């Protein structure tokens, strides 16, 4: 990762210097080593603060909505999975491609701080990352870890190392590769439950929601200028809850709103401070869409129709609900 970071710093510096770009969107150190923040760099000197490590999970695509409205061109670093969301934003005309310069950066999979904590790793000062081998320098001494044990949920079912869109690449020739898991395994498990069990599962998960809106803010698809939940005409804006279930509806409605558009970037679950597995709702939609309309990956390309906004004469009939044993 360090090799890639050095490439990023030097190319960004060159591009700023020669005037190809006016700004650079990357990550800078946060309060702790494990929380690098998205940041805009405007000068070559400031690029010394550009960081890229196993904790640079935050997707930068969505920041381009506002960033590309400004005069001039912005350089953005996108990991392979981030390019899907970037494509989706292009498809919905949210991002100005002409004002963007995309450097696709290689990725060894991002780390889950919660998993590190569970392993008893605390007080991280820095990491030495070398493929699967990882040494955490902490306040309490060095710890040797296997990267595959501490990957983020979304990285366990990585979409692959291919960048779907880029102007140039900053990758290494010999990237670390890891075995990915079936992303629908947990969905299948939930489908196997009785309706009552499933309801209880989701009530248990969603009842923890504090409505901080982090999922909505991080989601590259939730990019409405004004969310329906904030729309005074919807009649639900700033409304107090009638019962404890109403809060749950927020996530169910949000899942419907992003259905057919969700790129499965996993940011919703990653940013949730309550660790609600929100991505499972979206993956259920993706699994069904794949079954009914053929394999579809939102953001794989910019053009072309998406299954839920297209009619085809062979489309699945509503009776499929009964065929699948629903009521």
């Amino acid at each position: 990762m360090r090799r890639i970071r050095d490439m990023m710093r030097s190319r960004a510096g060159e591009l700023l210097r020669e005037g190809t770009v006016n700004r650079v969107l990357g990550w800078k150190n946060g309060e702790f080593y494990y929380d690098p923040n998205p940041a805009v760099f405007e000068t070559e000197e400031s690029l010394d603060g550009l960081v890229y490590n196993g904790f640079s999970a935050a997707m930068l695509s969505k920041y381009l909505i506002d960033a590309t409205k400004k005069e001039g061109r912005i350089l953005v670093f996108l990991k392979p999975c981030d390019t899907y969301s970037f494509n989706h934003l292009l498809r919905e005309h949210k991002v100005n491609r002409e004002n963007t310069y995309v450097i696709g950066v290689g990725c060894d999979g991002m780390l889950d701080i919660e998993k590190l904590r569970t392993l008893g790793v605390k007080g991280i000062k820095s990491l030495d990352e070398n493929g699967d081998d990882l040494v955490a320098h902490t306040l309490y001494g060095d710890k040797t870890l296997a990267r595959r044990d501490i990957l983020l949920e979304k990285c366990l079912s990585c979409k692959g190392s291919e960048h779907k869109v880029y102007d140039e690449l900053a990758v290494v020739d010999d990237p670390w590769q890891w075995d990915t898991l079936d992303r629908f395994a947990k969905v299948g498990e939930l489908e196997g439950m009785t309706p009552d069990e499933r309801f209880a599962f989701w009530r248990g998960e969603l009842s923890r929601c504090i409505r901080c809106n982090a999922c909505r803010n991080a989601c590259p698809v939730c990019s409405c200028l004004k969310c329906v939940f904030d729309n005074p005409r919807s009649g639900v804006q700033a409304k107090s809850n009638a019962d404890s279930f109403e809060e749950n509806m927020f996530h169910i409605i949000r899942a419907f709103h992003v259905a057919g558009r969700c790129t499965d970037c996993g940011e919703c679950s990653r940013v949730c401070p309550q660790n609600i597995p929100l991505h499972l709702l979206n993956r259920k939609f993706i699994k069904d869409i794949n079954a009914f309309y053929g394999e579809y990956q939102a953001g794989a390309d910019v053009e072309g129709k998406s299954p839920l906004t297209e009619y085809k004469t062979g489309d699945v009939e509503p009776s499929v609900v009964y065929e699948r044993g629903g009521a």
Partner: protein
Amino acid sequence: MQKIGVFICWCGSNIAATVDVEAVAEAVKTEPNVVFSTNYQYMCSEGGQSAIRNAIAEHGLTGIVVCACSPRMHEATFRKAAAVAGLNPYMVEIANIREQCSWIHKEKSEGTEKAIILARAAVAKLNRNVPLFAGESPVIKRALVIGGGIAGIQTALDVADAGYEVDIVEKTPTIGGKMAMLDKTFPTLDCAACILTPKMVDASAHEKINLYTYSEVESVSGFVGNFTVNIRKRARAVNSDLCTGCGVCVEKCPSKSAKSEFNQGLCNRSAIYIPFAQAIPNVPVIDRDACIKFKTGKCGICEKVCTAKAIDYDQEDEIITKQYGAVVLATGFKPISMERYDEFQYAQCPDVITSLEFERICNAAGPTKGKVLRPSDHEPPKTVVFVQCVGSRATVDCGKTYCSKICCMYTAKHAMLLREKYPDTEAYVFYIDVRTPGKSFDEFYRRAVEEYGVHYIKGMVGKVAEEDGHLIVQGSDLIADKQVVIKADMVVLAAAIEPDPTARSLGTMFTASMDTNDFFTEAHPKLRPVESPTAGIFLSGLCQGPKDIPDTVAQAGAAASKVIGLLSKDKLMGNPCVAGCSEPLCNGCSSCELVCPYGAITYEDKMVIDHGVRETRRVACVNEAVCQGCGACTVTCPSGAMDLKGFTNLQIMAEVDAICR
């Protein structure tokens, strides 16, 4: 502040028997802004309508709720009545307390409770109604008929005779359809070709009719009065303008192993072929799967022998885009597949055939030149067993639950023709019931039994087995209450008929609804039998349900008269219940544009002022003349910027809230 009147209809005893109309009228009085409520025996009668008009004047009503039958029955009636009294017609709401309430409840208490809830929902919606005003749209004075069988031909002729242009799109290389395959027609036994071919010629010669054969509808957009249709004219590989129809190419073609579709696969045809002698247009088509030139690049004999230089191997499909005011679906039928009926040995024994195959065998232009011969050994059969209701009125999965309607009559015809030509051949007919409700139909059937000595056996055939060159038919005779075994030489299966498989995709394309059997549904089963529920789409012939030739021709004429009624108008009143975009909320994401089936939404860059911020944004714009108010955009829009006039999200939520109160 609204002033709402509520009118509850008894519909004779239709509603009043299961709904306490007095109680409903009393209950709605306390609803917000309701100033008047009453009940009446027949709201749709002149007396009921005048009660509405008087109440509007007397109480200064700003909107009315009529609790009565489905809005599909009388919404227009009550809107007109309200308009006469000076109300905007869109300030009328219907609460359906008949189809959705009184007819489905037995307990009066339940019916009454539900009627009150439905009335409350309608009041809640009406409280959020605003007057709406309809625009106008022009009518394109041309009709499209899909399907070139007798139904399509007759509709086209009738519409064209009224002076309007008609295009027929037929997927096979010729018009004529299934009727062209028939030998004789019941109950008069006149020759099908003799009565059909003059109509085919009339259609092709008519200056107002344009034929697109070997063509299919590719896609459609637009709405009543203004459809835009893309027609794929498939490449014949023969230039129709140059071809003289001499037939030398067909004769000289060395590839003669393709099955003749027209003769039901009973004989072969060449790779370049004209389906039958009277085909229209009389232009051959090259079957690319069978043609040696297309398969191997060698041959080219047809090109060499064609003196008109009409053969064109490089010809490509052509897409023709045309506009139409009305569309007639006349897609016809096909017999169901007999492959799954193992008990009749259809797939195993060549001498077990379908009725349509028998029709070709009887025909002078058929594979046996009209001699009834067994397909297996070309010997004349001595005993023929006809089995009716194969797949019709079925209770098993591979059949159809409905009666195919035509089989009783054509089986009687077949048996009669057989006995007429070969008096020493015995004919047996197995039947469940013989159904002959038509002019001169029962007389026809009795002639078969009484004059021609056809043996009718009430009962079904359980098994057909081949034995020593004969077919052993085992069946039951329900009247004699015994098993019968007949040693037959040929078995003819009266296969059930089903809609042509292309109907389903066309139904989806034109949003013409279908029933569970894929027959197109009518706007009303009794009162609007030739119209689809989708405006501007009409139904002709068997695609709507099983029927014989006289019924088909009658219905084709009826469909034509509806088309003429539409095309004779210069302008249609539009529907004011169209979508609209709230620009400050619009994201410019294009979801609505992609989902709109009518192409009514475009995007423009507009200056938007949002809480003091002025910026140019990409926002959706609805073309109100094109929008049909389907609402797909409103449910697709993630931010709720799209809303449907007359059915706004707030109105619908108000209804839901009122129901859940």
